């Protein structure tokens, strides 16, 4: 079980050749990259709806986004916001990978998207009409957008790719699971190129719901802020956005002469019995899943230089995740252990934000730089957290962490590609 991946040929090795982003820190990898690596945060007062009646007011919203730059008017009219962000990011990822969808390749291009909540506000609106006015008043135009796979479907209609098309919805590991599934599909040869990532959007309804679950900062009534791994953290801040990677086999990338950002070398999937909607309190599930990912990549904890963490400023999650790292990397002195950062300090918690974090990690491997955890002042444990500014760090292997309430875990190993310089 959980042994090294069986394929060693290039056809079974999965690389990242494109990055597409529509995020609170900008649209496109250039805008996002310049801001995330300079340690900026996208968190500020929510502007898209009023928060006066709530104890929380902060969020990370996608603001400078013009859907018309990416989507034809004909299709745009049918799309809600999550479909728009997804379609834009998918287009950017294809462009970045140098792939033009055409009659010859469209059946071998697919999409695997994660979304925790989809277009919740559309469903709520439909329910409201039904309850207040009755079934005859339900608008059929709204219906397709209430289905969680709408974003992947709309992206395929706009961009014309017709291969494998699946939507994963498993709370805060939706995007990481979609990536894991996509890696398996490329290894299996089910498609030549798969766009994989996640998208979720901020809506008044779901903001209120999170408020009522007491999940948001300031849970202790003190200062509202997102402070992953900090001693004084007091809850999450919500975000939104979409991040998508273009995955293909090393063989096809080589044949096309594309230099990949990185290789995806290991998958770890796991669970631990946890009450619904609650965060796990025992690090055992996280540790087990990390070991599975490392085994799958054929490496050990000592080979990891960087961890893109799941911590969101919540009391329970951050503590259990840090405890797991303290144990897993116990062989190394704290300061020599892998660099750890949570980009949720800059992007907030958007549940399927694993897509955006995966994009950032691919950029980090390419640049040899690892961004800081914005908001982290006093670490809750002596681990090698990146604070203040981006750390110059050549990364051979890194972990992308996915942890969800309900006790679900996904860890992925991102590795540097070697020998690609010779590509003609």
């Amino acid at each position, binding site marked *: *079980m*959980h*042994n090294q991946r069986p394929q060693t040929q290039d056809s079974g090795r999965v690389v990242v050749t494109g990055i597409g982003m529509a995020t609170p820190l900008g649209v496109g990898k250039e805008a996002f990259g310049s801001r995330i690596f300079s340690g900026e945060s996208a968190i500020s007062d929510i502007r898209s709806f009023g928060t006066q009646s709530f104890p929380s007011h902060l969020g990370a919203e996608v603001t400078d986004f013009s859907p018309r730059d990416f989507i034809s008017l004909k299709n745009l009219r*049918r799309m809600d916001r999550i479909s728009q962000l997804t379609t834009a990011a998918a287009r950017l990822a294809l462009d970045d990978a140098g792939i033009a969808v055409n009659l010859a390749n*469209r059946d071998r291009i*697919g*999409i695997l998207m994660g979304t*925790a909540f989809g277009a919740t506000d559309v469903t*709520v609106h*439909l329910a*409201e009409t*039904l*309850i*207040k006015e009755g*079934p*005859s008043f*339900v*608008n*059929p135009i709204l219906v*397709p957008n*209430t*289905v*969680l*796979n*709408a974003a*992947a*479907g709309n992206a*395929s*209609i706009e961009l*014309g*790719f*017709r*291969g*494998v*098309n*699946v*939507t*994963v*919805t*498993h709370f805060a590991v939706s995007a990481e699971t979609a990536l894991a*599934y996509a890696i*398996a599909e490329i*290894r*299996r040869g*089910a498609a030549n190129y798969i766009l994989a990532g996640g998208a979720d959007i901020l809506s008044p309804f779901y903001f209120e*719901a999170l408020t*009522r*679950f007491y999940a948001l900062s300031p849970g202790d009534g003190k200062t509202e802020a997102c402070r992953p791994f900090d001693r004084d953290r007091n809850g999450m801040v919500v975000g939104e956005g979409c991040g998508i990677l273009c995955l293909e086999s090393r063989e096809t990338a080589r044949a096309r002469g594309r230099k990949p950002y990185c290789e995806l070398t290991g*998958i770890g*999937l*796991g*669970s*631990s*019995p*946890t*009450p*619904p*909607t609650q965060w796990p309190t025992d690090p055992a599930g996280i540790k087990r899943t990390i070991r599975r990912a490392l085994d799958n990549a054929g490496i050990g904890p000592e080979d990891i230089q960087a961890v893109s963490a799941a911590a969101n400023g919540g009391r329970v999650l951050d503590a259990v995740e840090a405890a797991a790292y303290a144990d897993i990397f116990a062989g190394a002195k704290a300061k020599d252990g892998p660099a750890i950062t949570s980009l949720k300090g800059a992007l907030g918690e958007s549940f399927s934000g694993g897509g955006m974090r995966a994009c950032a990690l691919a950029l980090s491997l390419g640049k040899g730089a690892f961004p800081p955890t914005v908001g982290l002042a006093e670490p809750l444990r002596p681990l090698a957290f990146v604070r203040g500014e981006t750390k110059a760090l050549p990364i051979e292997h890194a972990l992308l962490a996915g942890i969800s309430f309900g*006790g*679900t875990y996904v860890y992925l190993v991102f590795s540097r590609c070697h020998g690609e310089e010779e590509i003609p």
Partner: protein
Amino acid sequence: MHKKKRIVVTGMGTINAIANNVPEFVRALGEGSCGIGEIDLFDTTGYRCRKGGQIRNFLPRRFIPAEFPLKRMSRADFLAFAATLEALHDAGLYPLPEAMKEDMGVAIGGGSGGLLEGESFYSDLLQKGSGKAHFSRLSSVYCASSTDRIATYLGLLGPKITLMTACSSGATVLGYARDLIRNGQAAIMLAGGTEPMCRITYSSFNALKSLDPDVCRPFDLHRGGLSLGEAAAVMVLEPMESALARGARIYGEILGYGVTCDAHHMTSPDEQASGAIRAMQAALKDSGLGPEDIDYINAHGTATAVNDAMESMAIREVFGRRAYAIPISSTKSMTAHTLGASGALEGIVSLVALAHGFMPPTINYRDPDPRCDLDYITEGARPAALRAVLSNSFAFGGNNTTVIFGKRPDGSAGHA
């Protein structure tokens, strides 16, 4: 290339409009029972249609032992967990051996999730205001709730996956669960789908005018749309070697699957049938089979005007002249269309057909449609010794999934 691990099905569980368990389902499929009738789960006043494939008198405690608290579970959660317990019993794995939990996972395809309960929450929110609405009831609204319940109640430590590709969710999970075992990410998987009857979903299909006011009539000239249903269907998947080693009864094998997208329209299938054709072709290729190897097709067969003609055309395209020699049925004529569960439910139908040696009928059929000119098994179930069965699931968003099931390996323990 090393040889791919063969993955077999050793346990099944279901609750649906015509059966409370698999043995009842086998009998009902053989008899051609119709589970479509007047809905009493909610008020259907003001709808174009008042019928559906509802599970009657569903009492969770009849299916779920007292050790599992029912608090805050949705109808989708109840159905999924009940089907899971039956599948584990059926596989001889209940109570679950402690040593199996480490590498056992669960993959569930969802649809409406907890929207039945969600509607009553929204209703409170609108009528009583947010101060009085119990937001904790939202905890079971999302599809992943069913998956989380199963894993946590059973103490599973393996992968936990929830897919939502609308009406193909339950088929796609079977393929991915197979691959999770093949790839070494799990030693054994529970995989299936769950779908509750609920007013919000019913209203959506009502608004799209896709419901037949009467019972649905797949492939019939006068078919007037689909009937909505509810179900859960869950299977136990494991490698053939481990099933043989523990002397498990084997229903059949998951030979292959294919997933494609129409990239055409969110709610209407591509009338050129490209997505459906490619899904069947991809599943055949993944199975290492040719068109001559398929002995029965469990059709998507929703009974919408477009789907049934499109699907028949796709089958003709994939199978050529042999299309006319392959018996096909839409068991949605009996169970109604169970959306997110349908792919898994029809997976069970396919395995029942293989293990019990009969092909279930398409009921409610009266008048032939020249565009649907294949053999739809309209005169009752037919006995047949089947080698491989192909099952189609096409969905909203243009998502198409085909799964191919094979007969149990020769010499393995079969069905009693």
